């Protein structure tokens, strides 16, 4: 769970991006190395096949390189890369299932986030229970709500970036987020209350 400040690396990123567009191989390397892990993590949410995710990132950069003359020099790099990977993975999986290679989960039905509960921060058993409940509740959210929660709270992205990545309007992002949080709060409260009462009775 890390908040990533947007402003500090921003201009460096843009400069690297523009060097990339100008055909600079060292910028290619900087950009791809710098974003590989973020993209890999994001891609793995759509597919459990890590090799497929790595291949997709490679394809993405080769594709961008090939088309660099036509790309927007002012693009916001991180959301742009994430959005492009998302599109590319969806397309690749669709074409794979199209030619009958089947067996893969179609990512549009798939967005899995996994948490680990770090107990060092927890003093009370009740806090542990609440954290585990939250983990479970996030897992039960519909996939688009899950993705919005992931991008906002765990990638530190703003509404406009999320709207670009998920290819929906900013208003839809706000709505999804509001519904998700409301859902989490309500169920969480209810579950905790149940737990608490059981605890008292026993």
């Amino acid at each position, binding site marked *: 769970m890390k908040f990533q400040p947007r402003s500090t690396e921003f201009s460096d990123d843009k400069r690297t991006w523009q060097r990339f567009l100008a*055909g600079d191989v060292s910028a*290619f390397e900087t950009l791809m190395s710098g974003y590989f892990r973020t993209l890999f*993590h994001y891609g793995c949410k759509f597919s459990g096949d890590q090799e497929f995710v790595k291949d997709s990132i*490679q394809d993405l950069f080769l594709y961008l390189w090939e088309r660099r003359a036509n790309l927007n*020099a002012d693009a916001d790099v991180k959301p742009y890369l994430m959005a492009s990977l998302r599109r590319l993975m969806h397309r690749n999986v669709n074409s794979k299932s199209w030619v009958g290679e089947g067996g893969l989960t179609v990512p549009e039905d798939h967005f899995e986030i996994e948490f680990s509960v770090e107990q060092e921060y927890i003093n009370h058993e009740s806090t542990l229970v609440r954290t585990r409940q939250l983990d479970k509740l996030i897992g039960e959210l519909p996939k688009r709500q899950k993705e919005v929660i992931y991008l906002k709270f765990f990638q530190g992205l703003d509404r406009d970036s999320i709207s670009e990545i998920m290819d929906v309007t900013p208003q839809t992002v706000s709505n999804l987020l509001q519904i998700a949080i409301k859902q989490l709060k309500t169920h969480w409260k209810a579950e905790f209350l149940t737990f608490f009462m059981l605890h008292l009775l026993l």
Partner: protein
Amino acid sequence: MDRYNDFTVEDFVWDDFFRQWALAPTPETSTVWDEWVGSNPEMLEKVQQAKAIVLSLRLHEPEIADPEITRIVKQTIAKTDEPVYGFLPKTENTYRLLTYLVAASATLLMLAGWAIYTLNPKKGDPQSTNIGSPTDSNIAFIEKVNHSAEPMRVDMEDGSKITIAPAGRLRYPKKPNADKREVYLEGEAFFDIAKDPGHPFFVYSNGLITKVLGTSFSIEAYYDSNEVTVEVKTGRVAVFAESDPAVKEKISGTGLQGVVLRPNQKIIYSRDEVRMVKTLVEQPEMVVAKALTPQFEFEDTPASDVFDKVGKAYGIDILYDENLLKDCPLTATLDNQTLHEKLSIICKAVEASYEILDGQIVIYSKGCKN
């Protein structure tokens, strides 16, 4: 802060400002929250619990190691366009690698030689060139000559900055061309060219054409010298002779064709001996941003990893036999040395030697397995 007065634990957990403080507190945010809890002591327990939840719920991400990322990035770059001067696979046997390199350079030299020899009608005379010479047309030119003893800076309309060394002479059309930017140089100059992939930038100097899309580099092309040298500081630069048979395609192509130079590489073009030699600049500089300069502290690190790290920082390909060098551990701190000092120290420590070949560094080693 009043809006927090009737917050529940659930509310806190999803509140941006609260999360920011819980995950990455700053003196400012800590003051704000400490004061608020101080005047609302009944909220302390909720705040503590919410903070514990925010901190303890960690996203579990699949792991991927740095060397794996480096490997994939290298592999990807190898798949981009450059046919001759691309990245070569590092796991190959050094001798085979060497043969390959020598063959590749030989081919290139022969081609360049043939091209220059057969197609340049009056070789050695800069006025006889048929492409791009300012005397060819009736276009009005601006001419800047540096008569002083100090470098002279010229700011171009497109944002490019050109620094002309004393006695240098730069000419360019008064009215910029619609699809390309062009200048003519005699003498020495440093170019910091504004990025504009749609309008490639050309420097014509003593029979050598330098083409870039946006980058910085220097050219030395004295009228009375047989050699033209081009050194690259950042970005990529393509060079080709004016007498190149494919010169029209190379000028009009959208990418960079010809001999492509990367940062810290240098080309020496000899007009009389009709050859191009690619090497490294004398004192290569790191290509990574200052803030990102890696630390060169190694403890029992395989020499192969050390070379990778150094090569990456300088943007230079270092070729070695991975099987031999992965068993050569190195312990050293190399933050304050130049590239050549670094390489000498590493090579001495693992009983290897190095050579600059074709703008790359080749390591010769017999391994350390005994």
